[in-house]
């Protein structure tokens, strides 16, 4: 089947099988290397993407659902202006995750900040509960996201 959608701001036209999962389409056919297709059950969270504005795990979504969708992955977020806020927040709180789960943590943070630029601890915890990596100190990660939100608010007022 033929699919077309927006991936990280670019139009994509691709042919795939009806049974393909979105994570496999993105990772294997479109070379989105930040995704780690591993659990295929939405447990580890290492295939997190922003799909039509919502945070989703791409292993749980059939590829055909991407028809006409807008998808953002880590590769797209690092090129956006807002990435600097996330990077700064993580650095200041020493909450940089390992290289394996960095991409999913950045996508999750971006998703939180898109919906609310002043998230509380509980809201962040709720979203983080969908991911798992042994490197992650969830307490630190929460602080890192709160700090990133602080920088995002400042940036939106034109402050550095």
């Amino acid at each position, binding site marked *: 089947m033929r699919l077309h959608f927006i991936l990280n701001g670019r139009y994509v036209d691709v042919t795939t099988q009806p049974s393909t999962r979105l994570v496999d389409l993105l990772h294997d056919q479109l070379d989105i*290397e930040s995704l780690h297709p*591993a659990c295929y059950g939405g447990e580890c969270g290492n295939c997190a993407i922003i799909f039509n504005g919502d945070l989703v795990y791409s292993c749980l979504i059939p590829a055909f659902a991407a028809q006409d969708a807008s998808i953002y992955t880590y590769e797209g977020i690092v090129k956006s202006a807002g990435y600097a806020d996330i990077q700064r927040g993580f650095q200041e709180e*020493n909450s940089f995750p390992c*290289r*394996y789960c960095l991409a999913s943590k950045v996508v999750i943070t971006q998703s939180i900040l898109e919906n609310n630029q002043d998230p509380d601890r509980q809201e962040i*915890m709720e979203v983080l509960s969908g991911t*798992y990596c*042994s*490197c992650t*100190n969830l307490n630190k990660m929460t602080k890192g996201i709160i700090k990133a939100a602080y920088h995002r608010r400042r940036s939106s007022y034109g402050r550095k």
Partner: protein
Amino acid sequence: MDDNFPFVDKYKTDGMFHVQIVRAEIPRGRIESWDTSKLPEEVLFFSAEDLPGKNELSLLSETMPLLAAKEVNYQGEPLFLLASKSSESLEEAKKKIRIDYETDFSLLAFEPSSSDQVIDRVSLVRGSEERNYGSGTQIIEAQYRTSSETHIGRAPLGAFTYWENERLVVHTPSHWPYHVRGSVADVLKISPSKVKVIQSNPSPAYGEKVFYPSLVSAMAALVTLKTGSPARLLLSPEEVERFTTKKAPVEVNRTSVIDENGTILAEDVHLRFNVGAYPMFTRELLIRAAISSGNFYHIPNINITVEAIRTSAPPMNLYRGLGVAQSLFATEVHSSRLAEFSQLNPGDWKIEHASKRRIITGSEIKKMPLPELLKQVLEKSDFYRKHSAYELTRKRRSSIKTSRSTLRGIGVSSGFTGNGFTEKPTGDFNWGISAVLDSKDRLSIECGTLNIPRAIQDIWKRKAAEILGISTDSVEIIDGDTDSLPDSGPMMLGMPVSVYTSLVERCCTYIRKQRFHKPLPIRVHRNIPAARKNVWNRESLEGLPYQSLSWGAVVTEVELDPLTLMPEVRGVWASFDCGLIYDTSYAVSIAEAGIYEALAWSMGEERGSPRYYQDYSLENPETLYLRLPPVSVHFLNQSRGVPGGINEIAESLVPASFITAMSQAAGVYFDRIPLTPELIHGYLEEQT
């Protein structure tokens, strides 16, 4: 992503062979015959007979087969390899192999096990073995158990191999690239100089990245050797989870004799580890467990025996902590029990014993930090008041079933873990680090294992800059492969932070001395020093066993819901002395992560769905959210000494304090982890 350090699944090329392992379907038996006649033509088949060299993987004098030649010792053991240029055809091809087994073998169980299954034993005996102390003494016997812990095999584990300029190149996420090089050379019967290993990204890891990369690299390399084409073998997440290493379960029996003052006169300790089918790294595990069984208690007459029991399970030994977490759990729960039988506060009892300033191997600790750590953590947690109040409540309560309020308890544990190996490398094991100062005053540090955590790299840079009087920007940690980097040994057991940091210091000190006497560039290599007989004797287990020690004391407060029997952690207070700390914020983060991991293990959580910090709101019970217990971490003496590991000491002390607290809350002696509500219910039923 960091393109300079890709994961192994990113390596692929046109025309490469995909390799898969055919695993044993039975847990024990003998391979009678196999039939591959129905395999498609494009699928290649390899057995142990195709190996040109040794059919074994060796690790510090212990071995396991690469492919089972005849005997099968656990379900999932690698038997054969299949290779094809199409990955889709391999799954179907696996089903077409017919294997006949002789299964007239009994399974090797852990409980019960026979004496034939003991494959290694370590004894640590001090003083007399006489145990008759007459009246006025109490004998306390207890048994403790911990179960296995499995990591989630999410990060890719595999190997990609190909020929380049008549040399075999291997990409694999190993924590010890030189072990991969040696293993591949042994299996293929080629010179190690013909093999180049390039480390792919090994994070995160629990211990499975020390020798499993060597195993899969040798398998992929065999296909490349036989076909001349590139080959890639990637283990599936299920294979990593089921068949690579796990935390070894243990059964501990302790018998103590204490006098009326609560002083331990004698103790017999017997630990039995289920190490699975093959003993990889078992000797190190047994020695570490024996040392942690004595901990810092000065017991004049003690007999510790630690045994490795071979079973029909996959190998379970090389896992984070390497036997220390299991052993310290039993030691510290038992010591709290001894304090209780002596009618002493466990905090005071531990402080009293810590004042002896010796560890079990006889080594004197000149600056024993434990009394101070204990005092600090007891004060910060308000331990004395809470312990007395909860004890009173427990004694006044007639039954847990009639209790209308939540039940609370508090527990304390303390001790040390070691950084580095008890076996100091000598002879073949010249593990070390090199450094080069060039004519532009730039220092390059060469370490054989990449993926050194950023905070540790910062420590090295600051240390080197401080010694040489240059800026930290002039210090670089070099990327490379086994052609350009030295063998630095496996990256585990606090090696990067404690052992390697002191090597960096020694390299820089040498360069400083030679700097204005020799022309630049100056290159220096420093090995991990061999053991000196007067410092540590590994045979008699006497002296200081580790490069450095990390000390800690942890208090955990819990609450138990009498209706659901669901434990909740109200708080964890921890004090550590891990030597010099450059970045306190990072150190706190590591300690907190270790504490959360330990709580997950103690409460029987499946990794990935941590129940212990989940909660729900009554308004919306379907919404689960995470609620982390408050953790308070403090460091002592953080401006002196050699930096030591933090994660392991944090992970090792929490389970004992949690179980002790749970015992006080429920009024039942719990003696195993993980402790689930179902198990608590069982204990309470047994009590009534």
